[in-house]
């Protein structure tokens, strides 16, 4: 299969996952072109400056997946298969059922390029020419330390995502924000944990609470393990207590969602699972995010004008998008601010 054939087959399989913003074949080939310069450059030598060049994919890529959100697994498998590599995919030990069925949707020739397991098979690290690792900083560091020097290493640590509402007198973004918060139970690296609001943040929080309830009515939160329920209950109790005193805190909650408006300094801790904080936008945003520097993921903004995006372009986010689209990443997204195909290939030049 050449690159175009793989793109076609992958797009057909990806279409089974509409909630994951599946790319079309065109999207996949466009990503190859954008990152590698030519759609067919993985298939043979193509003009490159005054000579010819070819991008050579790793023979095998080891993918380490932690966490239970499907995005990372989906995108990294698509990338590895699009490149034409053999892929050794270690799923989380607790499983990731949705993605573990992905090979069944591929034609045999592509399916044979996927080996998946919930455990790290003994020979996998030695077979791979590139390692792609998703997980906490500790997990990434652990694998980075084990990675042989000549093997490519791509680490993806955990991220915090935020929202900023600069001007929304009609509260038009609230329903969209509720979607961003609620999808994937807020466990994704692009799920907002705090939304900063210019103007009347309390009014925004109240309106968001109504939209969270509306979203939950249509898409109820799934049952949570008891220990997770307890963490959410603890967080609610903590903020309920603060709300009972003169702490500038107000809490709205319903079945499976919580909205907290709070005016204090610092970055509040969300237990996730549809638990969102609304804070007034400080004058020194985003420099007030000090402890989060280096861990920022996506920023949803409203209104999503380019001029507004420019205000935050140097803040450390890898993706700025309209509120309501935070979970809808295009395949060409620079995940973790890098080109994810280009960083995996090596180049061979031919010519004078």
């Amino acid at each position, binding site marked *: 299969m050449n690159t175009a054939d793989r793109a076609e087959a992958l797009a057909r399989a990806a279409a089974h996952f509409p909630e994951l913003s599946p790319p079309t074949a065109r999207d996949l080939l466009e990503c190859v072109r954008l990152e590698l310069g030519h759609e067919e450059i993985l298939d043979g030598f193509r003009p490159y400056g005054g000579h010819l060049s070819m991008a050579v994919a790793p023979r095998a890529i080891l993918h380490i997946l932690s966490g239970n959100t499907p995005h990372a697994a989906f995108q990294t498998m698509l990338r590895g298969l699009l490149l034409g590599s053999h892929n050794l995919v270690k799923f989380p030990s607790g499983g990731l059922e949705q993605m573990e069925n992905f090979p069944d949707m591929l034609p045999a020739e592509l399916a044979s390029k996927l080996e998946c397991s919930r455990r790290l098979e003994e020979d996998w690290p030695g077979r791979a020419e590139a390692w792609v690792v998703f*997980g906490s900083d500790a997990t990434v560091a652990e694998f980075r330390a084990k990675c042989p020097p000549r093997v490519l290493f791509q680490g993806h640590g*955990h991220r*915090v995502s935020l929202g900023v509402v600069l001007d929304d007198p009609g509260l038009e973004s609230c329903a969209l924000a509720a979607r961003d918060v609620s999808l994937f139970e807020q466990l994704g690296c692009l799920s907002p944990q705090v939304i900063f609001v210019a103007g009347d943040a309390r009014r925004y929080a109240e309106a968001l609470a109504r939209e969270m309830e509306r979203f939950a009515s249509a898409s109820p939160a799934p049952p949570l393990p008891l220990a997770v329920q307890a963490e959410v209950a603890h967080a609610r109790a903590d903020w309920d207590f603060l709300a009972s005193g003169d702490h500038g805190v107000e809490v709205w909650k319903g079945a499976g969602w919580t909205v907290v408006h709070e005016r204090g300094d610092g970055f509040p801790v969300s237990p996730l699972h549809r638990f969102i904080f609304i804070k007034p936008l400080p004058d020194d945003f985003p420099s007030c995010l000090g402890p989060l520097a280096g861990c920022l993921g996506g920023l949803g903004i409203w209104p999503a004008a380019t001029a507004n995006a420019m205000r935050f372009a140097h803040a450390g986010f890898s993706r700025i998008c309209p509120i309501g689209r935070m979970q809808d990443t295009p395949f060409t997204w620079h995940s973790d601010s890098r080109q994810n195909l280009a960083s995996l290939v090596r180049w061979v030049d031919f010519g004078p």
Partner: protein
Amino acid sequence: MVQSTNNYAALEAEIARWMAVGGGGFEDWILEAHQFQRAHNTAYRNFCSGFPEPSCWQEIPAVPVSAFKSAGLRSFAEEKTIRTFETSGTTGGSPGRHHFCSLSLYEQAAAQGWAGAGLPSKNVVAIIPDAVGAPHSSLSQMASWLVPPDGFFFNRREELLACLEEADKPVIFGTALAFLDFFEWMNGRRIVLPVGSLAVETGGYKGTRREMPKSDLYGLFQERLGLPPDSVWNEYGMTELSSQFYTNGLGRPHRAPPWARGLVVSPSTGIEVGEGETGILKIFDVANLGSVCAIQTRDLAIRRGQDFELIGRDPAALPRGCSLAADELLS
């Protein structure tokens, strides 16, 4: 018969008499203490305004332990504070603070609770700092009522070992971490304490990256000190409480003293779970008169009749997505 009073000292004295005599009346006394706190503790009164008046002890609004960080939870005038104990804390920020205008109920609860659990009062030694060395530690304060001044062996391991080798049925009191440090320091040395000796471990490994399953820790007690699991006790207590809960061996529930109760509630409904079911542990402690008697802990527990089997905080509860748990970052 409970007599309503607006006077802290008078109510404290009545509760002390009731605790000393023992017997029933828990519900009357905790409701009386609750009414007193509602009247005299502003932060708690504000919190209670969101709840109906309790008709039984289970309905008393329980503050989360974090309330001891964010509010001065006093049921007495601030200027009457004589001691403040602080939590060790694990995730930065300010510690929890438990203020006292009198230590007498705390002392009575500690001493009477220890004896009531069946723990001996003779030959008790501690491997934690004394109250002078750790003035903000409630555990050290409690130990000072149970251990004679020359019985503290914090960071004096060689002397502790010598003491244990000489002592007649000693009772060793300390944190799980302190015991673990001691066992590591022993570096393979072993002693066999006489039958009737006991160890009482408490706390966990707060503020450290170390942890060990309880069964492994109890295995070390057997291996290093010759103490079988049934001779090792666990004390469940908190800086935010005045009373303690005890159990011994593995897999047994913690028992409350007559003036306290544990209540295991569903995290989703807040209602008491059924027998053998797991939920969030709330503690109701009449001896906590100076602050708040009803506290929602961060621990999970299994309801075992009137007792509870402690599970603690479940690390599996941490978010498992690729969204960074902010407390992980901020810790």
